[in-house]
């Protein structure tokens, strides 16, 4: 079943099963997006993801289908992330510079993924959000502008700068000495 009839059932009858189906369907995307924003802090990403879905449930009556349900969830997730950031008085340095244990450090994740995660931590949070939405979730620039509530020009700048920084970080020597000649 597609999203629209499930959403209609949640709105009309407060159908919890329908809402649970929507959550199961989109939890991976929302948690993955937040994981990137939270620099690999899985527990924090999951807390914000729970908050995101709770807010989505409370506001589902105001959902309009133009942008797609997942984009709508991403917008709520990003706002939830920002309010959590404000609530905890995170500074950019605190969130970005302190390397957290990256989720991808299990056996299946290679060095490249870990390097990328570390490099992403060095980016500013809007740059991380833009790159994640653009490449990880395949969203267009206008869609990202809508989700992040930023002008299109700013989105393009964040993506270009983010990529530039990532390339520089990934091509430079790793501080841990893991670089190859």
């Amino acid at each position, binding site marked *: 079943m597609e999203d629209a009839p499930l959403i209609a059932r949640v709105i009309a009858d407060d159908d919890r099963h329908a809402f649970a189906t929507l959550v199961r369907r989109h939890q991976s995307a929302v948690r993955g997006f937040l*994981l990137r924003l939270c620099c690999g802090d899985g527990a924090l990403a999951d807390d914000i993801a729970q908050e995101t879905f709770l807010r989505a449930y409370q506001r589902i009556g105001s959902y309009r289908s133009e942008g797609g349900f997942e984009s709508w969830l991403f917008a709520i997730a990003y706002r939830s992330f920002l309010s959590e950031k404000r609530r905890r008085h995170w500074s950019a340095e605190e969130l970005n510079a302190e390397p957290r244990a990256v989720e991808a450090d299990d056996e299946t994740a290679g060095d*490249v993924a870990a390097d990328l995660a570390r490099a992403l931590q060095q980016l500013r949070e809007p740059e991380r959000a833009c790159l994640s939405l653009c490449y990880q979730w395949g969203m267009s620039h206008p869609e990202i502008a809508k989700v992040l509530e930023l002008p299109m020009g700013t989105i393009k700048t964040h993506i270009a700068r983010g990529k530039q920084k990532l390339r520089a970080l990934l091509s430079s020597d790793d501080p841990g000495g*893991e670089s190859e000649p």
Partner: protein
Amino acid sequence: MNEQPESLESLLADAPYIDDAGFTESLMKRLPPRRPSLRFRTLILLGSTLASTCIVAAIPGARQLLMQAAGALVGDAAAVGSNLVAAGIVLGLAVWGALGAAQSDF
């Protein structure tokens, strides 16, 4: 480490599926109590409207009541007396119906 610039996009595109692992279940436990269904809210709205209509229809000379109530609003309160109480009930029911409608997701 040396990263090929052209592979950056594909590296970024890597989005491994995150297993639910109880996420949905714990979220469902945190949802607020069930709100009245749309059907129930519609029944409240229709019921209150119907009830107020019946009360007005049951009062002898309903039109006169309305005229007297209007007169009371401009200062002739003594003339309407107890009919104003009935008008108050009608008004209360109408407000109740309006609140029921306001809480709905129409």
